[in-house]
C-alpha cells in the first residue's frame, strides 16, 4: 500500500502506527486519492462468555473516506454492529487496530481523543431508545455543543440548535426545540438523532440500521438528508443495514462489504456487488429480497440455502464458515480450508474456493 499523504491536522505518527499492517492485495481498492479518516486493520473482537469465546468480529480491514459510503451488510449476529462500535471507539478491539487519521485510537492523547470523539458520530438503530426521554430536543442538541465548547452561551447554542433542525428538515425548527421525544414521531426522533450527530460537525457518521424502523415514505427522505450531508459536507459514512435495497440506493457511489460470522466475505463497489454478486452468501442475500414488483417477485431466481439457520459463533464450522449452508459446497475443500479474502480484479475482494471473481 502506498503511504497516504498525511493532512496537516493529523497528529504526528506515533509508534503505534507501525503495527498497522498493510494487507496484501488491497492497493487497488483504495481507489480514492483521499486518505481514509477511519480505518480498521485486522480488527478483532472476542467476547468471553461462560459458553466459551465468541469471536464476534474475526479480523476485518475497512476504510471510511470523506464523502464516501462504506456499507456493511449481513444477517443479525454477523458482527456488523460490533464492527461499528469498534470503529466509533465504543468498544476496544481485542486484536488489531482502529486508526483515526492514521493514528491508532489507543495511542491518541487526551486532546486528540476528544477530537476523535467529536469527529466520529454514531446514530443508533432505535430512535425510541437513543434519545433521553427527560431532555427536550434543545437540551439534547446543545449538550454536546457545550461539552465540546462549540457554542458559547445560551443564545448561540439555541441558534445552533435551530440551524441543525433546519438542516435535517425539521421545520419550523422553533416548534420542535422544546418538545420531548414522546411528542415526536419515529421519523422526527431519528432526525433529532441525526441533528445531534451533526452538531459535532463530524467527519464520519456511523449509522447503525438508522432507517430500518421507519416507514418507507420517511426512510427515503431521511436517506436523502444523509446523502446531502455526504455530498455537500463531505461526511464519510459507515452505513450498516440488512436491507440491500437501501444499501444499493445510499451507497451507490461507495462500497459494500458483506459480512458473515465476523468476517468480510465479499467487498467491492456497490453497483458491482449488488448487480453481480459472486459469493454464494451475497447471492443468497440479493436473491432473498422481496422486490416491490409482483411480476419480478414471482419470476426472480432464488438461491436455496442448504440450511436456514446461522451457525453458533462458539462452535464455528471447519473450513469456510458458510459451507454448512452453501449451495455450492464442495466436499474435501470447503470443509477443510478457510478461503482467504483475496482481490479478484475490478477492485473486488472475495473469500470463496468455488466461485471466481468477475470477468
Amino acid at each position: 500500500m502506498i503511504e497516504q499523504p498525511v493532512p496537516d491536522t493529523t497528529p504526528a505518527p506515533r509508534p503505534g502506527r507501525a503495527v498497522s499492517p498493510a494487507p496484501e492485495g488491497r492497493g487497488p481498492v483504495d481507489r480514492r486519492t483521499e486518505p481514509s479518516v477511519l480505518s480498521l486493520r485486522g480488527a478483532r473482537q472476542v467476547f468471553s462468555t461462560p459458553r466459551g469465546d465468541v469471536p464476534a468480529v474475526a479480523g476485518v480491514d475497512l476504510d471510511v473516506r470523506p464523502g464516501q459510503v462504506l456499507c456493511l451488510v449481513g444477517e443479525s449476529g454477523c458482527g456488523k454492529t460490533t464492527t461499528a462500535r469498534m470503529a466509533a471507539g465504543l468498544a476496544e478491539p481485542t486484536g488489531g487496530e482502529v486508526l483515526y487519521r492514521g493514528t491508532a485510537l489507543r495511542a491518541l492523547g487526551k486532546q486528540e481523543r476528544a477530537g476523535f470523539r467529536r469527529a466520529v458520530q454514531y446514530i443508533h438503530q432505535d430512535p425510541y431508545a437513543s434519545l433521553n426521554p427527560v431532555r427536550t430536543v434543545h437540551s439534547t442538541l446543545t449538550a454536546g455543543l457545550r461539552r465540546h465548547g462549540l457554542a458559547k452561551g445560551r443564545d448561540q447554542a439555541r441558534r445552533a440548535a435551530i440551524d441543525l433542525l433546519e438542516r435535517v428538515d425539521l421545520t419550523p425548527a422553533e416548534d420542535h426545540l422544546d418538545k420531548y421525544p414522546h411528542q415526536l414521531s419515529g421519523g422526527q426522533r431519528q432526525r433529532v438523532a441525526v441533528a445531534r450527530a451533526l452538531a459535532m460537525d463530524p467527519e464520519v457518521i456511523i449509522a447503525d440500521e438508522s432507517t430500518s424502523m421507519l416507514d418507507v415514505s420517511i426512510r427515503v427522505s431521511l436517506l436523502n438528508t444523509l446523502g446531502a450531508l455526504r455530498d455537500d459536507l463531505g461526511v464519510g459514512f459507515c452505513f450498516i443495514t440488512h436491507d440491500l435495497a437501501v444499501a444499493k440506493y445510499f451507497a451507490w457511489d461507495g462500497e459494500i462489504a458483506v459480512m458473515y460470522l465476523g468476517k468480510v466475505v465479499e467487498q467491492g463497489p456497490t453497483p458491482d456487488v449488488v448487480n453481480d454478486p459472486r459469493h454464494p452468501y451475497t447471492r443468497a442475500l440479493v436473491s432473498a429480497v422481496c422486490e416491490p414488483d409482483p411480476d419480478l417477485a414471482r419470476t426472480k431466481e432464488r438461491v436455496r440455502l442448504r440450511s436456514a439457520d446461522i451457525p453458533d459463533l462458539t462452535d464455528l464450522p471447519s473450513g469456510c464458515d458458510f459451507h454448512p449452508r452453501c449451495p455450492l459446497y464442495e466436499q474435501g475443500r470447503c470443509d477443510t480450508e478457510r478461503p482467504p479474502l483475496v482481490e479478484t480484479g475490478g477492485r473486488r475482494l472475495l473469500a470463496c474456493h468455488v466461485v471466481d471473481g468477475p470477468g
Partner: protein
Amino acid sequence: MTPTPPAPAADGPLLSVRGVDVGYRTGRRTRLTAVHDASFDLYPGQSMALVGESGCGKTTLGLGLLRLLPRTGTVSAGQILFRRKSGDQVDVRTLAKEDLRRFRWNEAAMVFQGAMNAFNPVLRMEEHFLDTFRAHERRTRRPRAEILEESAELLEMVRLDPARVLPSHPHELSGGMRQRALIALALALRPQLLILDEPTTALDVLTQRSVVEQLTELRERLRFSMVFITHDLGLAAELADRVGTMYAGRLIETGTTRDLFHRARHPYTSALIGSVPPVAGDRHVPEPLPGGPPGLNALPPGCSFEPRCPRATEECTATRPELRVLHPRDEGLSHAAACLHADGAELPTRGGHP
C-alpha cells in the same frame, strides 16, 4: 388425526366486510374512529395485503375482524360476515362469548406482530400448543400425548424440529424459529382464514425468505385464505393476490396486486410504491413522500390525502371521494380507488417488467 380441509369453496365470499367502523374510547365522552367504512370481500383461497404507513388503521382493522381489540376498542358499525365451516354465514359482530371463542382459531386465527412477544416467556412451547388445543378445540379433552403428536406434525410443516422446539422456552429459539412456530400454532385447528400482522418485520432477509416460502407452501397445501398487514411493499408484491391501501383509517384503493403495482389510480398508492428502492435492475431513485398522515382527530373535511397530494385541486379540499369501482371484476377483485381524479392522467408506477 388427519387434517380436515376447509369446506369446499361454496359460492360467495369467505369473508364479507361491510361498512365497518372501528373506534377507540379515548376519554369519558370522547371516541376516536380509527377505521372508517371498510368494505371488501375475500373469497376462499385469496391472499390480501393491507398496506400503508404506520397509524393508518391496518392493525386496528385486522384486530377488529376477529374482535381482538383492546378493551377500549370496538367495532362500532357495519357487518363482518363470515362463512363458517358448516356453511352458515354469521356476523362476527353478533357472536356470543362462547361462540366467539370457538370461532377464533377454529375458523379464523391471528398471527400477532412481533413473534418475540407473542409467546408467554415462562411457558415451554409444548404448553402453548396444549393450551391452544384445549382452549379452542370443539371436542372433548384429549390426552396430552395425542395433542403433542399433532403439535409435532404442525412444527414439521414449517420445517422445525419438534424435538428441539417443543421442550424449549421461547427465548431459546431464534426470531425466525419463533415466527415459524407462531404460524404453525395459528394453523393448529386448520382455520379457513389467517390474519397476519407484519409477519416478516424485524426478521433478517434470509429468514424473511424462509417465512415467505413456507407461507406460500402452506397455502398451497392447506388452502386457507389470508389477510396480512405489512408496510413492506415487497412482501405484498410477492405474497398477495390482491392489495388494499389504507390511509388515515380508510381503504383508499383496492385491486389485484398487478393493478396496484402497475396501474395504481390513487396518488397515495403510487407514491408509496415509488418510495421503495428496488434491488433488481438499474438504480431507481425513489421519490420521497413528504409529510405524514393527518391526525385521526383532525381529519381534513375533503380527501384526507389532499394536503400531501401532488394532483389535488380545490374540489379535493371540500369533497371526500368515495371508493369507486374503476374496473369491475368477480370475486372481489375489482379495481377501485377513492380519488376524484382517478380517471385522470396515468400515475407514475414501476412499469411492468418483461
